[in-house]
């Protein structure tokens, strides 16, 4: 059977996601949110999820629907503040002690995922040394500078958004759509990409921004 990673619907693509899964969700600032897949994950209604997502509260992402639906046990992110004075869905549950939160500097968040996908279990970074966010973490001095030991992040599932896929799952991105997708795709057992279009002609090798070896399933988003 020749490789063809297309799958008919977002629901089918997520049919085997179970309770307790750690889910990596890409997107930043309105670019590259896999909102079709996030909605399908809501409908799948797997519980006790750990979300690894840059922002738990971004207004253009549907991540808040998973949180409001009570499906999320823990969030790992760099931003969890709602825009308004009124508390966001995340903040209400967090204040009530119903969601656990791990807040990381954004570059540490990205590097932890990259490391997770690159076979590196932990790494030393100078970022956050001496701040509340790294309290209790191991510190080591190299040359004349202090570094904090941060653990890599891996997940069961990554939901990413790209522009074009070919049948092999090779992906290209538009503009700033890429953000966390390449790192997240390396660090999860199952990677589902939602794309604007699938081309039956293979993407020219030097134009591939994320190799299909990292992508398991491709869903076309028709909006």
């Amino acid at each position, binding site marked *: 059977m020749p490789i063809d990673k297309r799958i008919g619907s977002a629901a089918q693509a997520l049919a085997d996601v179970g309770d307790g899964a750690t889910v990596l969700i890409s997107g*930043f*600032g*309105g*670019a*590259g949110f896999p909102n079709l897949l996030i909605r399908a994950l809501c409908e799948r209604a797997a519980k006790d999820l750990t979300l690894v997502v*840059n922002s*738990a*509260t*971004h207004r*253009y992402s549907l991540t808040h629907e998973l949180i409001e639906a009570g499906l999320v046990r823990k969030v790992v992110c*760099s*931003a*969890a*503040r*709602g825009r308004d004075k009124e*508390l*966001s869905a*995340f*903040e209400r549950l*967090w*204040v009530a002690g119903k969601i656990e*939160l791990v*807040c*990381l*500097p*954004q*570059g*540490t968040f*990205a*590097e932890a*995922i*990259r490391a997770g996908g690159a076979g590196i279990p932990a790494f030393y*970074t*100078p*970022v*956050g*040394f*001496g*701040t*509340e*966010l790294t309290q209790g973490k191991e510190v080591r001095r190299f040359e004349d500078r202090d570094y904090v030991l941060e653990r890599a992040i891996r997940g069961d599932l990554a939901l990413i958004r790209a*522009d074009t896929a070919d049948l092999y799952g090779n992906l290209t991105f*538009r*503009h*700033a*759509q*890429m*953000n*966390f*997708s*390449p*790192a997240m795709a390396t660090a999860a057992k199952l990677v589902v990409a939602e794309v604007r279009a699938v081309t039956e002609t293979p993407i020219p090798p030097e134009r591939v921004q994320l190799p299909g070896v990292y992508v398991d399933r491709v869903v076309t988003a028709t909006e």
Partner: protein
Amino acid sequence: MQPLNRRQMAWRAAQDIEPGAVVNLGMGMPVHVADYLRPEADIFIHSENGVIGAGPVASPEQADPDLVDASSRRITLRPGASIVDSAWSFAMIRGGHIDVTILGAFEVAKNGDLANWDMRVPNKGPLVGGAMDLAVGARAVWVIMEHTTRKGGPRLVEACTLPLTGKACVTRVYTDLAVIEVGPAGFLVHEVLEGMTREELQTRSGAPLAYAPDCRPLAAPPLSYAE
């Protein structure tokens, strides 16, 4: 003379950026620095989401939801721009490839400690974003902030009272009243608003101020403030 308004503070900081520099601008006042860069300076604006060479904010016709900056604004690209993923973008920051970052702040201590990410608002979730990465990774960290809080308290302090973003990282502060270098000896004033005495500036500051021998008047062209 009137204290500088927020546009004028951004203008003043923009004047000090070296031609050809790679610059990262924080949310709020710092993003306005981009409006006052001299075109011939050929500066590249880096944004944490992976854009190197951000151009002006897009017009409604140009706006593309896939092309945003770290403040979630829809932007354009300048000639020679490139786009990488987040892990690479932050490797660029930590690796010392950003010449200067200009950030907003709540407090700057005399040893260069920076507090700009958490005002301890009860029940609001944390938002650190890329602030800690920039504070540690950029080759120079400059701050634009009002000299005092809304209640009149100092923002230039002996030691930060709010949670730290980074230790001993800020080297220069642009306020509405002065331009201040932060070095081994603490705060050193390089420019101060014309007509403001040293005593007046000191009463608005929470740590001792020293003056550079060539301290000059702080001036900016009239620029109307609109967010």
